[in-house]
């Protein structure tokens, strides 16, 4: 197997020119798919026989919660890649990804709490899933705060990578511990995502929404990474050419 792609991926210049035509189409496709999923879920999908129409929150809550976790997984992997191979793109990826993940975790928290009110009768339950998303949000905020307060670029890169990797190693432990906490506290037995036999007209829109949000985030991520690359590589001649010759 050739490793050329791996080394190419490490080069900001290569990534910039490669990703240039992709950002907008991916983003637009994501928006479209997300919109289809949401409209379908809000308007056409049947109401849940137990929860009624409040269950329609699932079409935004579940995709966002999935993203919040996937983003963290990606951060951890990027941190690992940076610590092992010193790949230049990894810290750029982390820098671009962390705010997206934080917003996703926040939306997941808020929409989950709002969903909890009609379902459990309270805004907040120390449910394992909610608690771990809350911790995830703190982890994201920690990474962002750390990056903002370190002036030295080399140190900031290393620091973000280390904290991401440590977070990734810890995440399963944290999840396990909150699940344990919940089972001993005899929390609500109703689980949100394990729907027994969800009919296709219910989960198909969810699929659209999930795929849409992933593409939406991928598009945003590419844009953010491009900005970060330009910021960091401004001394090289290709950036100068890129910025002065092409418009926005």
């Amino acid at each position: 197997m050739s490793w050329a792609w791996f080394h190419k991926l490490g080069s900001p210049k290569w990534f910039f020119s490669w990703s240039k035509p992709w950002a907008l189409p991916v983003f637009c496709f994501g928006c479209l798919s997300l919109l289809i999923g949401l409209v379908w879920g809000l308007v056409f999908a049947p109401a849940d026989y137990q929860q009624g129409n409040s269950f329609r929150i699932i079409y935004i809550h579940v995709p966002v919660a999935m993203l919040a976790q996937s983003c963290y997984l990606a951060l951890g992997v990027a941190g690992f890649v940076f610590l092992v191979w010193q790949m230049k793109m990894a810290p750029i990826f982390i820098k671009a990804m962390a705010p997206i993940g934080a917003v996703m975790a926040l939306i997941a928290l808020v929409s989950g709490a709002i969903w909890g009110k009609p379902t459990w009768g309270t805004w907040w339950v120390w449910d394992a899933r909610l608690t771990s998303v809350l911790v995830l949000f703190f982890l994201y905020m920690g990474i962002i705060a750390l990056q903002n307060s370190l002036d030295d670029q080399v140190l900031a890169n290393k620091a973000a990578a280390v904290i991401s990797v440590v977070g990734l190693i810890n995440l399963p432990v944290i999840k396990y511990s909150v699940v344990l906490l919940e089972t001993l506290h005899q929390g609500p037995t109703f689980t949100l995502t394990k729907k027994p036999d969800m009919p296709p007209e219910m989960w198909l829109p969810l699929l659209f929404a999930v795929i849409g949000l992933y593409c939406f985030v991928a598009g945003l991520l590419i844009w953010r990474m491009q900005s970060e690359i330009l910021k960091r590589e401004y001394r090289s001649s290709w950036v100068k050419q890129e910025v002065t010759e092409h418009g926005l």
Partner: protein
Amino acid sequence: MTYSSFLVSEFLVLWRRKQDVFNALLFFVIVVVLFPIGINSSPEFLAPAAAGIVWCATVLAILMAVEGMFKEDYHDGSLEQLVVSGLSLPLLILLKIVAQWLTVVLPLLLMMPLLSEMLYLPSSGFWVLTMTLLVGTPSLFFIGVIGSALTVSIKQGAMLVMLLILPFYLPVIIFSTLAVKASQAGLPYSGLLAMLLAISLLSLVISPFMTAIVVKASVN
């Protein structure tokens, strides 16, 4: 510089700063006292809550101690000397953590009988709590030291360390308090203690290397 001369100097510095350790202990006691005063001082509330109260106070006291662990070394240049000493940096960091752990946690354990009386903790629960502290606190140090190294070059780093590190302390607090509660309910708790030990060992393996990476990047 050798490993033993480094360890001796660490202990000497800690001895000269015994006031700091004493302050951390006082802080610990005050936090514990806040709970009966602030919430409820009846034995019905305190006995089941004792483990959680003690652990919250421990976590805060340890974070206070760990947060400034590299500050002085960073400013007087001895951190730099550790990097260029030719000795293994992870091992030096491990020694530093051991010295710190001994000087903070041992006095804290000595205070436990007094505190468990104040919190109406039954004697069976007391021993389990002491065990969780013995097995669990090393991981607090190992994880905290990473945060301490990350923020060593920042002037106002204390809050950032709290934000970075406290989420990672969650499992340790959960397992410890659950172990004490299980013992009070007559349930087996050895699995939870094993879990704490596993976390401590895992962080023992990872933390010195991660901290070494960060220290090297910080001193430049």
